[in-house]
C-alpha cells in the first residue's frame, strides 16, 4: 500500500480553495439521509458534530464523560492563535504558517499547515459570534498576547481559561443541535471497537459505562476525535481518563498510526511531590512572558531563593538564547530544565525543579498588572503547593503534555480506512515534531468547524444514502469479541492493581523515551514492555463485574491498550535516529549539544501498519517535501 496524502496541486494559497471546489457535494436534500458517528466531544469532536448537524447530516456523538463539556480541551489555558494581524506587528497567514511548520521542526506537511493558518481567522470570527468572552482592550477590540516563542502578538485568550471558553462555545453549538433533533448524545459510553466491513468504516461497538451493555451503532462515516495518548506515561498533564483506546483499536483494524514517538514535554508544570501523585498540572506557558527562569549557579545550592544573590543565579535561558530568552520553544525550555537538574542545580525538595521568578516583573509593572494577567494561575499554583508566587518564585518542571503523533490522515482528514476520519489531537496532521503554544485549540477547531465539514461530503457522496445497516455479521462478531475481551480482563484476578502496573510502564517510558533518548535505552524499553504487558495479563486485579459502573475495569482496558501502544511508540523512536522537534536523540547532536535534525534520512512521516499481536509493524514512509519554505536548523540563540 502506498500512502497518498491527496495534497491538491497548485500554489500553497490556492490549494484549499481548489480542493473544496473539486470535492463532490452531497445534495442538500440528501444530507439528512446520511448519518455520522462522532466519538469524542472535545473541541474537535463537538465543533465537527455541531457543524455537520447544521449542514443537515444526522449525527450521533459518543462521549465517555457524563457530559460533552468535560472533555480535556477544557483545560487548555493560554490561548488560540490566529493570523488576524490586529496588532499590525507584521503577522500574516504566511508567517503563522511559517512559524508553525518551523516550530514543528519541518516534520509536517506544508499544505496542511498553510490551510490551518488560513482557517485560523475564521475560527476567531466564529467563536466571537458564539459569545466566547475573549479578553478585550479598553476600546472594545480584541486583545492579543505573544505566546510561547512567537515574535508577534497573535494569541487570543479568555483569561487563563481559553480552552474552557472555546469548548463551551462548541458545546453550546452542539447543545443547540441536540435541541433541534439533529444530534443524539450518548454519554458515559466507551468505544470498544471500530466496525470495518469490506474495508470501510461502518460503525462502532460501545460499552455503556453504567450498565456494561455492549451495543452496535452503524453510520456512513465514523469520526474519531478522541484526543492524545500522553497518559501512556502515567503522569502527564492530560485528564485522568485521556486514553489511546479508540485510536489504538482503530489502528488494529487497519488505520495507520503516524509518528507515535512525537510527544511534547511541556516546560512549565508543577513539579512532582510524591509516589501517590496522580497527575501533573500545567501552568500556562504564558507565564514565561513575564517570569524569569533560573537556578543557582552552584550545584547543590540548597539556600532558599531569597538568600541567593543575583550574581549567584543562572538565568540559563536568557544567557544561552539572548534573542528569545525565556520565550524559547517548549522543547528547548524543557530540555534545558532537565539539563540543569541533571547537573544537580535543580531546586526544591526533589531537586527536580527550576525557579520561575516574577519578582522583576512585579517591580516593573506593579503587582496589579501581574495579577490581572496571571492571577488565576497564581491561585491554582498556591492551591496545589501552598506557596504564593508573589512572595517566592514558582517552581516548575517539564511534564508530558501533548501528542503530536496520532492516526495518519490524508488532506481530507481521512485515515487509511475509508470512512474513518480523525480530528484534533487524535490525528498527526499539523504539528510535525513539536506543537507551538496556542496551536492545539486552533487545530482542533479548524478540523471540526471548517475542514471535515468540507471534506466529508466527497466521501459520503460515494455512499448510498439511507438508514445504515447494522445487521451485518461483522457487528455481531465485533460485539462478541468485546464481550469476550471484558470477560478475559475480569478473569485474571491477579495481585497488582492497574495503577501499579501503569506506573511501572510510565516510568520506563519517561526514563527511556522522554525528552532525550538513545538507542540502548530505547532497546531496553522495547525489551521490557512485553514483560510488563505479560505481567498485566497474568497478574492484574480488577474488582467487580462487567455489568455495572466499574471504574477499575475502565482503567484496565485503557492500560491494556497503552501497553500495546507503548511498544509502537518506542519502535518509532528507535527508527528515528535524529533529534527533532520535541526530542533529543543523544546520538544526533551538534558540537554545542543542540539537537541535530537529519533531513536527508528522516524527512518523512512514519506511518505504521499493524500486523497482529506480537508481530512487528510495517513502516510506511510518507516523504515530506518543502517547496515554499527552506528547512533550516532551528536556532534560538
Amino acid at each position: 500500500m502506498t500512502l497518498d496524502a491527496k495534497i491538491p496541486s497548485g500554489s500553497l494559497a490556492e490549494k484549499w480553495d481548489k480542493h473544496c471546489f473539486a470535492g463532490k457535494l452531497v445534495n442538500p436534500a440528501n444530507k439528512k439521509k446520511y448519518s455520522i458517528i462522532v466519538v469524542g466531544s472535545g473541541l474537535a469532536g463537538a465543533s465537527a458534530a455541531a457543524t455537520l448537524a447544521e449542514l443537515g447530516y444526522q449525527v450521533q456523538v459518543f462521549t465517555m464523560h457524563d457530559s460533552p463539556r468535560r472533555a480535556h480541551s477544557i483545560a487548555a489555558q493560554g490561548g488560540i492563535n490566529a493570523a488576524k494581524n490586529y496588532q499590525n506587528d507584521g503577522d500574516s497567514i504566511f508567517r503563522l504558517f511559517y512559524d508553525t511548520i518551523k516550530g514543528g521542526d519541518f516534520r509536517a506537511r506544508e499544505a496542511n499547515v498553510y490551510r490551518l493558518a488560513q482557517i485560523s481567522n475564521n475560527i476567531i470570527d466564529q467563536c466571537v459570534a458564539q459569545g466566547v468572552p475573549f479578553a478585550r482592550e479598553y476600546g472594545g477590540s480584541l486583545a492579543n498576547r505573544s505566546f510561547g516563542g512567537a515574535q508577534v502578538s497573535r494569541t487570543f485568550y479568555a483569561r487563563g481559561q481559553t480552552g474552557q471558553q472555546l469548548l463551551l462555545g462548541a458545546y453550546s453549538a452542539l447543545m443547540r443541535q441536540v435541541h433541534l433533533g439533529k444530534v443524539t448524545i450518548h454519554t458515559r459510553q466507551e468505544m470498544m471497537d471500530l466496525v470495518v466491513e469490506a474495508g470501510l468504516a461502518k460503525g462502532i461497538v460501545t460499552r455503556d459505562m453504567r450498565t456494561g451493555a455492549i451495543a452496535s451503532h452503524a453510520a456512513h462515516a465514523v469520526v474519531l476525535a478522541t484526543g492524545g495518548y500522553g497518559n501512556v506515561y502515567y503522569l502527564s498533564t492530560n485528564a485522568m481518563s485521556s486514553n489511546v483506546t479508540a485510536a489504538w483499536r482503530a489502528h488494529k483494524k487497519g488505520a495507520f498510526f503516524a509518528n507515535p514517538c512525537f510527544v511534547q514535554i511541556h516546560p512549565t508544570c508543577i513539579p512532582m511531590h510524591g509516589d501517590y501523585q496522580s497527575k501533573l498540572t500545567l501552568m500556562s506557558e504564558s507565564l514565561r512572558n513575564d517570569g524569569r527562569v533560573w537556578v543557582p549557579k552552584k550545584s547543590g545550592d540548597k539556600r532558599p531563593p531569597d538568600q541567593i544573590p543575583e550574581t549567584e543565579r543562572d538565568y540559563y535561558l536568557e544567557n544561552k538564547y539572548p534573542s528569545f530568552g525565556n520565550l524559547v520553544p517548549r522543547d528547548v525550555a524543557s530540555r534545558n530544565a532537565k539539563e540543569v537538574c541533571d547537573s544537580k542545580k535543580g531546586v526544591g525538595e526533589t531537586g527536580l525543579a527550576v525557579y520561575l521568578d516574577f519578582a522583576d516583573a512585579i517591580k516593573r509593572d506593579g503587582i496589579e498588572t501581574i495579577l490581572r494577567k496571571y492571577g488565576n494561575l497564581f491561585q491554582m499554583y498556591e492551591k496545589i503547593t501552598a506557596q504564593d508566587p508573589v512572595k517566592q518564585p514558582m517552581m516548575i518542571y517539564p511534564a508530558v503534555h501533548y501528542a503530536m503523533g496520532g492516526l495518519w490522515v490524508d488532506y481530507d482528514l481521512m485515515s487509511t480506512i475509508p470512512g474513518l476520519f480523525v480530528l484534533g489531537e487524535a490525528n498527526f496532521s499539523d504539528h510535525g515534531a513539536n506543537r507551538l503554544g496556542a496551536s492545539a485549540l486552533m487545530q482542533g477547531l479548524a478540523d471540526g468547524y471548517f475542514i471535515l465539514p468540507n471534506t466529508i461530503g466527497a466521501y459520503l457522496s460515494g455512499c448510498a444514502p439511507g438508514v445504515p445497516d447494522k445487521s451485518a455479521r461483522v457487528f455481531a462478531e465485533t460485539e462478541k469479541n468485546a464481550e469476550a475481551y471484558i470477560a478475559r480482563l475480569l478473569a485474571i484476578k491477579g495481585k497488582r492493581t492497574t495503577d501499579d502496573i501503569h506506573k511501572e510502564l510510565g516510568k520506563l517510558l519517561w526514563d527511556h523515551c522522554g525528552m532525550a533518548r538513545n538507542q540502548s535505552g530505547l532497546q531496553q524499553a522495547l525489551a521490557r514492555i512485553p514483560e510488563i504487558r505479560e505481567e498485566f495479563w497474568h497478574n492484574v486485579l480488577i474488582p467487580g463485574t462487567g455489568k455495572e459502573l466499574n471504574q477499575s475495569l475502565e482503567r484496565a482496558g485503557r492500560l491494556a491498550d497503552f501497553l500495546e501502544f507503548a511498544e509502537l511508540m518506542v519502535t518509532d523512536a528507535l527508527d528515528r535516529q535524529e533529534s527533532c522537534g520535541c526530542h533529543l536523540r543523544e546520538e544526533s547532536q551538534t558540537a554545542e549539544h543542540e539537537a541535530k535534525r537529519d533531513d536527508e534520512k528522516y524527512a518523512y512521516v512514519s506511518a505504521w501498519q499493524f500486523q497482529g499481536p506480537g508481530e512487528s509493524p510495517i513502516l510506511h514512509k510518507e516523504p515530506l517535501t518543502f517547496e515554499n519554505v527552506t528547512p533550516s536548523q532551528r536556532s534560538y540563540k
Partner: protein
Amino acid sequence: MQSKKIDINLKIWRQENADAQGSFEQYSLAGISTDMSFLEMLDVLNEKLTLEGKEPVAFDHDCREGICGMCGAVVNGQPHGPEPGTTLCQLHMRHFKDGDQLVIEPFRARAFRIEKDLVVDRSSLDKIIQSGGYVSVNTGGASDANTIPIAQKTAEQAMDAAACIGCGACVAACPNASAMLFVSAKVSQLALLPQGHPERRERALSMVGKMDELGFGNCSNERECEAACPKGISIRHIARLNREFIKAALFSE
C-alpha cells in the same frame, strides 16, 4: 509549608446503583501526606480496598485541575469540601488535621440521580443548556471578530459568568436544590454580550422553564450556592437573570 503525615477517618456513602439502598461505610487511612490532593487520598483508599478484595469507591473526576467540572462530593456537609473557591480535586489534605473524621456524600438533588457511590447523573444541566444556553449561529457566516466592540468591563463581567464549570455544587448546596446560579451564569453571560441580545427573552424564559420542568427547586435567596461555587460565581447573576426573566415575561408577545 512542610508536608507531614496524618491519619484520617472516612465515612463514605456507598450505593450499588441508582435503585439500591445506600448507606455509610467507615474506613480509616494512616500516614496520608498533607501534600496529597483529596482525590489522591481517595485513590490511596481505593488501591487499598482493591488489594483487600473489596469494591473501591466510585467517584467522578477527570482533569484534576479544577476546570472540567466532573468531580464533586459533599465533604462534612459542604459541596467540594471546606476550602472556598476550590473544587474537590484541588482541595489538599493540608486543610485537615490528624485524626479528623470526614463524611463524604454524593451531590444530592431530585434532578441528580445517584449512579453509584459518589457518582451522580447531572445530564439535567445539559438539558437546561439545550433549551437556550447558546447564540443561534451556524458555522461559517460570522463577520470579522472586531466588528462589534465590547467594552472591556462588559467582557470581563461576561467572563466572570462564563467561568461556570457546570459541576452542580450550587444545586447540591441549595436547600431547594435549585439550579438558579447555574442558569443565571449562562443567561448573564449572553445577556451582557451583544451577540446574545437577539434571543435574550426566549432564552431566559425557556431556560428557567426547563429548570422547573426537570425538578430543580426555586431560589429563596439562601446564598448557599455562591458560597459553594468553586469558581466564585456571584449571585448578582441571579439578580440579572431575574431582571431578564421579568422583562421577558412582561414584554414578550
